[in-house]
C-alpha cells in the first residue's frame, strides 16, 4: 500500500487546502444544517412536553425507571473516547498517521460529551433541582452523597469535558494563527486574533506549546479511562442482575473506544468527500484506522464473552436467568442484532479488500455504531424487565415517542455542533500535517533506498 502522505506537498498548499474548507459553504451545507436544527426542534419539543407533564410521558414505569436516556447517555460518552485515543495515546506513541485526522476526532469528543451531558438533565425527574448534585457551599452544610456513582459521574464528566475542550483548543493555537494571518477581514479575523493568543511561532512559544500539549495529553489518558469506568460503576456498583458485573469498567472502556473509532471512520469519509481532503485523509491512514477498529472490536467481543462466561459459570442464578432472558425473551432480536453488528460484522474489516473500500466502510461503520447503541440499550432495558423480584417480570415497557424524539434530536444537536465547528475551525491540523510531511522527507533524504511505508 502507498504512503500515509505525499512528501512533496508544499506547505503553502497545505494551508491553502485546509483554509479552503473554511470558505462559505455550499447550499447543501445549509440544507443539512436546517435538517439538524429541525431534529433539535423535535427534541426540544419533546423535552418541553415532558418537563411540563412529568416523566410519565416517556412511558417509563415503576419497574422500568431508566430507559433510552441513560442508554443514549452511555452511547455518547462512549463516542467521546476515540478523540482522546487518537490525540493523546497515539500522540505519546508517536504514531504519525494520526496527525491529519486527530483534530476532528477531538472535536467529536467534545461535542459528544456536550450531547451526553444533556441526557443526564433530560433524565432527571426534577431537572430544576439539578444543582443539588453539586457540592456547593450552603448554610445547612448539606452535601451530595459522595458514595453515589452518579455523583462520581458528575465530577468525571465535568472534568473530562473541561479538559477535552482545553486540549482541543490548545492543540489548535498554531493553526488559529495561520487562519489569522491568512484571513484579512470580518468577524473571523477578530475571532482568530483573539483565540490565537498572539502566537508568532517563536522557538520559546513552540517549546512551551509542546510541553503544555504533552502535559494535557498525559492528564487526559487516565481521565478518559476513569470516566467510562465510572459510568460503568453506575451499573457494576448496583445489585441488579445483569449490571452487577465486575468486568464492566474495562468492558465499557473497550466499547467506548470501539464506537468512537467507528464514528471516526464515518466522519473521515464524510470530511474526505466534502472538503476534498484526499491528499491528507489518505487511504493508508484509513487502513490503519480500520485495523485499529478491528482490534478494538475483538477486544470488545472478548470482554463480552468473558461477561457471558462468568455469568454462565457463576453461582448467581438470577444473573444467569437474566442472561437467558436477554437471549430468548422479548429483547432477543435486539440482543442478537447487537452480537451481529458488534462482533460478527467487524470481521469484515479483517479483509484487505474492505479496509480501503470507502462506501462499504461508511455503511459498516454506521452499523457498528448501531450495534454499540443496542449494546447500551441491552444493558439497561432487559435488566429492568427481569430483575431479582418476580413482580417486575411481566411488565412490558416500550419507550414512547417522547424518548425516541429526544434520542433522535441528540443526533441533530451533534451534527449542528460538528458542522459549525468544521466551518469555523480548521478540521485538519495544518501544522501537524506539515510536520508529518517534513518527517517523511527527512526519512527519505537519509534512507533513499527504502521503499514502501514505515
Amino acid at each position, binding site marked *: 500500500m502507498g504512503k500515509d502522505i505525499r512528501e512533496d506537498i508544499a506547505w503553502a498548499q497545505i494551508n491553502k487546502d485546509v483554509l479552503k474548507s473554511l470558505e462559505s459553504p455550499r447550499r447543501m451545507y445549509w440544507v443539512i444544517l436546517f435538517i439538524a436544527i429541525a431534529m433539535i426542534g423535535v427534541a426540544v419539543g419533546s423535552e418541553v412536553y415532558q418537563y411540563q407533564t412529568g416523566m410519565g410521558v416517556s412511558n417509563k414505569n*415503576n419497574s422500568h425507571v431508566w430507559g433510552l436516556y441513560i442508554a443514549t447517555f452511555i452511547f455518547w460518552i462512549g463516542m467521546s473516547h476515540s478523540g482522546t485515543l487518537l490525540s493523546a495515546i497515539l500522540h505519546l506513541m508517536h504514531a504519525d498517521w494520526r496527525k491529519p485526522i486527530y483534530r476532528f476526532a477531538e472535536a467529536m469528543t467534545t461535542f459528544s460529551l456536550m450531547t451526553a451531558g444533556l441526557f443526564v438533565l433530560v433524565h432527571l425527574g*426534577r431537572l430544576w*433541582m*439539578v444543582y*443539588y448534585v453539586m457540592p456547593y457551599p450552603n448554610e445547612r452544610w448539606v*452535601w451530595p*452523597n459522595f458514595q453515589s456513582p452518579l455523583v462520581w459521574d458528575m465530577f468525571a464528566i465535568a472534568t473530562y469535558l473541561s479538559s477535552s475542550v482545553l486540549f482541543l483548543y490548545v492543540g489548535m493555537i498554531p493553526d488559529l494563527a495561520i487562519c489569522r494571518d491568512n484571513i484579512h477581514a470580518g468577524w473571523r479575523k477578530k475571532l482568530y486574533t483573539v483565540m490565537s493568543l498572539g502566537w508568532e511561532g517563536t522557538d520559546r512559544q513552540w517549546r512551551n506549546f509542546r510541553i503544555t500539549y504533552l502535559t494535557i495529553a498525559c492528564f487526559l489518558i487516565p481521565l478518559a479511562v476513569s470516566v467510562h469506568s465510572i459510568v460503568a460503576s453506575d451499573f457494576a456498583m448496583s445489585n*441488579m442482575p445483569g449490571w452487577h458485573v465486575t468486568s464492566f469498567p474495562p468492558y465499557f472502556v473497550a466499547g467506548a473506544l470501539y464506537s468512537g473509532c467507528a464514528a471516526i471512520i464515518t466522519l473521515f469519509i464524510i470530511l474526505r468527500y466534502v472538503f476534498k481532503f484526499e491528499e491528507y485523509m489518505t487511504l493508508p491512514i484509513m487502513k490503519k484506522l480500520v485495523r485499529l477498529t478491528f482490534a478494538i472490536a475483538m477486544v470488545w467481543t472478548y470482554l463480552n464473552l468473558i461477561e457471558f462466561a462468568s455469568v454462565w459459570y457463576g453461582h448467581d442464578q438470577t444473573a444467569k436467568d437474566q442472561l437467558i432472558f436477554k437471549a430468548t425473551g422479548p429483547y432477543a432480536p435486539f440482543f442478537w442484532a447487537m452480537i451481529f453488528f458488534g462482533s460478527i460484522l467487524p470481521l469484515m474489516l479483517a479483509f484487505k479488500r474492505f479496509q480501503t473500500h470507502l462506501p462499504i466502510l461508511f455503511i459498516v461503520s454506521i452499523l457498528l455504531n448501531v450495534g454499540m447503541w443496542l449494546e447500551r440499550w441491552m444493558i439497561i432495558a432487559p435488566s429492568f424487565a427481569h*430483575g431479582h423480584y418476580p*413482580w417486575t417480570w411481566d411488565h412490558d415497557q416500550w419507550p414512547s415517542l417522547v424518548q425516541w424524539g429526544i434520542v433522535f434530536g441528540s443526533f441533530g444537536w451533534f451534527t449542528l455542533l460538528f458542522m459549525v465547528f468544521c466551518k469555523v475551525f480548521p478540521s485538519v491540523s495544518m501544522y501537524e500535517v506539515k510536520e508529518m510531511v517534513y518527517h517523511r522527507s527527512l526519512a527519505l533524504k537519509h534512507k533513499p533506498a527504502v521503499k514502501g511505508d514505515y
Partner: protein
Amino acid sequence: MSITNLLENWSDFRQQHPSDERPHREYKWAMSIDLDSCTGCNACSVACYAENNLPVVGKEKFAHGHSHHWIRIERYWDNDGREFADQGAQFLPMLCQHCESAPCETVCPVGATNHTADGLNSQVYNRCVGSRYCNANCPYKARYFNWYDYPTTDNVWPEPMNQQLNPDVTVRGKGVMEKCTFCVQRLTVAKSNARSAGRSVLDGEVQTACQQVCPTGAISFGNLVDPLAKVGKQWMTQQVELNKDKQAKDAEEKAVKLRGYRILEELRTYPSVMYLEQLRESAI
C-alpha cells in the same frame, strides 16, 4: 453530612450494616407479616392510600405501571401442572423493607434517602432530584415514582375530595420518589407523646395504617428493642435475627417448624420485615 460530621463520625459512614456497630438504643421499628393469615383482601393497600395521600392514578396509568401502592398484594400460583391451583393463589404483601443496609441509600446522588436512628429508611421529598437510581437498585422494587403531577395537573383530588387528604402527610408533586414510611407521621406523634410522659413508646401504642385495618391481624408492627413487643417476640420465636443474612429456618434441617424468613436476604440488605411462611396442606 457536613465535613466535620464526616471526619468525626468516620466509622459511622464506613460500616456495612449499622446495627452491628451502632446498635439501636431506643427504637428499631420492625414488622412481621403472617402469610398464613393473609387473605389477600387488599384492605392494607386501601388504608395506605387513605393514610398517606397516595394518588389514585386511574385504570390506564395503572396498566402502564404508574401506580402508587406503597403496599401491594402480590399473587403467586402453585399450579403444579394443573389448570388451577388447588389452594388458589398465595398472597404476599410487599412494602418497603426498611433494610438496615439499604441499597437505595448508597446510590442516591443527593442523599435524599437516609437511615434514621430508629432504623427507618427515610425519604426526603424536598431533596429528591428524581434520578430514580434508588428504584433501579431496590431489589424489591418497593419504590414508586411520581410520573405525573397528580395534585395539580392531573387533579387526582378535585374539590371537595382534597378535604380527605391527611394533613400530617406531604402531598408529593411530580418528579420525586416515594415509598412506604412505616407511617412515620404516627411514629413521630407517638414518640413525642411518650417523651412528654417521660417514657418510651409502649407496644401497641402506635399502629401502622395497614396493620390497623388488617382483618385477620396478619401484620404486627412494633419496636424490636422493646423486649415486651409482640413483633420482637415473633422474631425471637422464629429465630430471625436482624444482622444475619441466613436464618435458622433455612440453616438447619431440624428447624422445620420455623416459618420466619426475610425476602432476598442473600443480597445482605438486612430487611426489617419478617414474613411467616404460609402453611400449605402439602407442607403439613
